[in-house]
């Protein structure tokens, strides 16, 4: 087990290094730099911009910048944010908690709801309920996440929604949150989390349900299910204790693959709901050509994906004895 984890971590380091290199090179090949836009509607002189570029080492050849970046990266230094004037690691650390909370809540909705719907469909394959849920999940799966977010806002949000139930944007109530009791603060945070998490989670749940339905159908046709039924077990026990449990194996793989999709989804959801997370920060950094922030965020995302996949593999090994011998 230790050998397996060590090997996967080593592979992960190689992946992260490759991703860092690609992100560094590709982003610097994009037109413009952090000072390009300064010419619009301001009196920034060429001298000013040249000096600013020198200050940040952007006047150096690309390979010099690259080797310096990698050397710093090896020491855990992601560089300075041009737009925030502080270390990238600190700037990202300020945003990661909001994104992790949003992604975790969305993941919870995604898998709980997706597994429940998919299992229900698989166990009643071909029924009217199955057809109806198939149409519903396919529709949800086809919906852009930002559009769903806007629709949820129009129905549920305070003042702008039909039902006037939940806050429209942000992660806490502006100007009031700091004065609430700890319980009040927790409630406030959860209330703000509901709409963005549901928007992100529902679309994911639709995809998960499709996988879960297929996995359930596959398991239900197998001999051990027939044996369980023949032994006289109640249908509920057969479905929940045997079929559902075994059908979860492909879903674990899906869990590992969900991380990058979730991270890209948060970019849109964070924009629609003004959620102060990593996604919005990275989009702003891309427009500002804040190279270090974008490269740093890509590296952090790569680490999260690598760790997510490792977690999925470990879970897989825990629940499926057949793969334990495979290193």
């Amino acid at each position, binding site marked *: 087990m230790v050998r397996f984890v060590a090997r996967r971590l080593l592979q992960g380091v190689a992946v992260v290094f490759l991703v860092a290199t690609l992100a560094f090179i590709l982003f610097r090949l994009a037109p413009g730099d952090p000072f390009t836009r300064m010419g*619009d509607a301001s009196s920034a002189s060429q001298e000013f911009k040249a000096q600013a570029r020198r200050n940040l080492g952007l006047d150096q050849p690309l390979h010099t910048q690259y080797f310096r970046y990698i050397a710093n990266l090896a020491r855990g230094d992601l560089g300075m944010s041009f737009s925030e004037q502080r270390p990238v690691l600190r700037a990202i650390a300020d945003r990661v908690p909001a994104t992790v909370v949003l992604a975790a809540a969305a993941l919870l909705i995604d898998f709980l709801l997706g597994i429940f719907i998919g299992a229900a469909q698989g166990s009643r394959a071909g029924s009217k309920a199955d057809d109806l849920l198939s149409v519903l999940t396919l529709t949800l799966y086809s919906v852009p996440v930002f559009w769903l977010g806007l629709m949820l806002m129009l129905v549920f949000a305070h003042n702008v929604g039909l039902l006037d139930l939940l806050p429209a944007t942000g992660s806490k109530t502006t100007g009031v949150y700091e004065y609430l009791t700890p319980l009040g603060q927790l409630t406030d945070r959860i209330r703000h989390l509901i709409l963005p998490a549901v928007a992100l989670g529902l679309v994911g749940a639709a995809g998960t349900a499709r996988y879960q339905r297929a996995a359930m159908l596959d398991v239900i046709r197998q001999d051990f299910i027939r044996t369980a039924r023949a032994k006289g077990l109640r249908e509920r026990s057969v479905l929940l204790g045997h079929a559902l449990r075994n059908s979860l194996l492909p879903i674990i793989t899906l869990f590992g693959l969900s991380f990058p999709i979730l991270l890209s989804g948060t970019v849109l959801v964070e924009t629609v709901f003004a959620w102060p997370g990593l996604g919005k920060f990275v989009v702003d950094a891309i427009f500002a050509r804040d190279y270090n922030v974008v490269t740093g965020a890509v590296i952090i995302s790569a680490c999260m994906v690598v760790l997510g996949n490792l977690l999925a593999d470990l879970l897989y090994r825990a629940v499926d004895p057949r793969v334990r011998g495979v290193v």
Partner: protein
Amino acid sequence: MKRISSLTIPAVLAALVGSEGCAPDLSCEGDWCGTLVMVSPAEPPTLLPIFAQFDIHIALAAQLFWRLADVGPNPTSRGHESFVPGLAEQWEFSDDSLTVVFRLNPAARWHDGAPVTARDVAFTFDVYRDTIINALPRSRLDRIVSVTERDPATVAFQFSERYPEQFFDAVYHMRILPHHLLDTIPRAGLRNHPVARNPVGNGPFRLRRWDAGEAIELLADSTFFAGRPSVRRLLWQFSSDVPTMVTQLAAGEVDVLYPVTGLENIDRIRGEPDLRTVDVQSNAYAYVAFNFRDPADLDRPHPLFADRRLRRALTMAVDRAVIVRSVMGDAGVVPVGPVTAGHWIWDDDIEQLPYDPDRARTLLSELGWSDSDADGVLDRDGQPLSFELLISSTSVLRVRSAVFLQEQLKQAGIDMTIQTLEPNAWGSRVFGSRRFDSYFGSWLQDPSPGSVTESWTAAGIDAGNVGGYTNSEIDRLVQSARSEFDPAVAKEMWKAVIGLINGDAPAIWIYGGVVTVGIHDRFENVSFPWDEWWKNLWMFRVAASRLIDRDLMPAY
């Protein structure tokens, strides 16, 4: 294990949705309550004014740091009579007018309690002039030879020459910094020093907290020497795009959105019962500029736009009033030239090229352009009259205006293709490689007409004048206008400058004038000055009868 009731989850959800959180005691009373929540699309990197590069950064720094003096309600950059006191309560020119001595207000204090002194002013000048800091206004301070402390409350500015904008240059470009807190920090490290994001200021508000990516919270300084701010807190939220910010305003989560762009967004805000819109004179104008150099070879003149008559024909083919009305409604103004409405050199009498499609067509015909192949596009020697317009995708108004412009030029037989680029790609083409036919830009003007120099004279070739337009007569007249002490004569000179530029048609001035601000209607004493719309936020107030929960939060 005890089974969770199937009703438990819905019950918890219902409780969460129904709960508004455990509200604290709402204790603020009197005239000084009120929380003003602003929203902006960008977050500043620091709060030190020396590093300010865009308006939100300047706007926030301005709440914390004040100037020695400021332009008055009718902003002009000339003389000193119309300026209002800031950190300095009095000033006096020497007999030769080469020295101006400021007397600081003894009540002016830093937020840590230390007095604002002449040493702070001298230190500030030194920092702004430092090439390591390389502050954006550094070159605007060229003619100030020295700033010296005469005594703790008196400071003298020495100029190299006498000119009408001496006082403006002395006070407008610098916001005073605390010597006692910044002096020991190496200049090269100041930008990244923690103090840059947690500064001690001298303005109406002090920093309380900065939640990166989310909001900055400022608290009113109740002992502020110029008077207690009328709101107790100023929260500045950072959002992303215009529709999200409009939603935040409509949902009551923020109080002010400057500016609201897009007629549909303005209509939405006007339809909300608790909101109102305020039309504000803007200090920006937008234009379509032509490149005078061939984008394929910058040493050669542009095959189309090097010709003055062609540029004039294009300008006369465009009905700018229709464009402005279509994209901005009644709020828009057609600029009389490269100048914004409200600026002291603006005058409706400035000579402009009229909208005259017949004259445009005649002129084009005289230049040899005709539709020989009947495809709707004029051509000459087998070459169609066609060019490309570059636009940054982030400006909704520019993108929409370009479509109307394209249609109007098409009616005149001119084929303009619109290339919408991501902002950096756009900036790289326009301000970097300068390989473009034309671009849609905008320019912010301060009270000095000197900004005309940066965009439309030979002196601006390395700055804003990326199209490379020059006219030696204009260059000469600009120098004379800048040195002219008689305001009336100077204004006439500037009008002549603008008229000459208009005659050369280096650009088509598309829109400017007024922007619309969305604001919660509980605020009174609302004003947005022309030169800096953020200047009077500290004077906004909420009547006691209109206070909402966030206005009533207890004091710290």
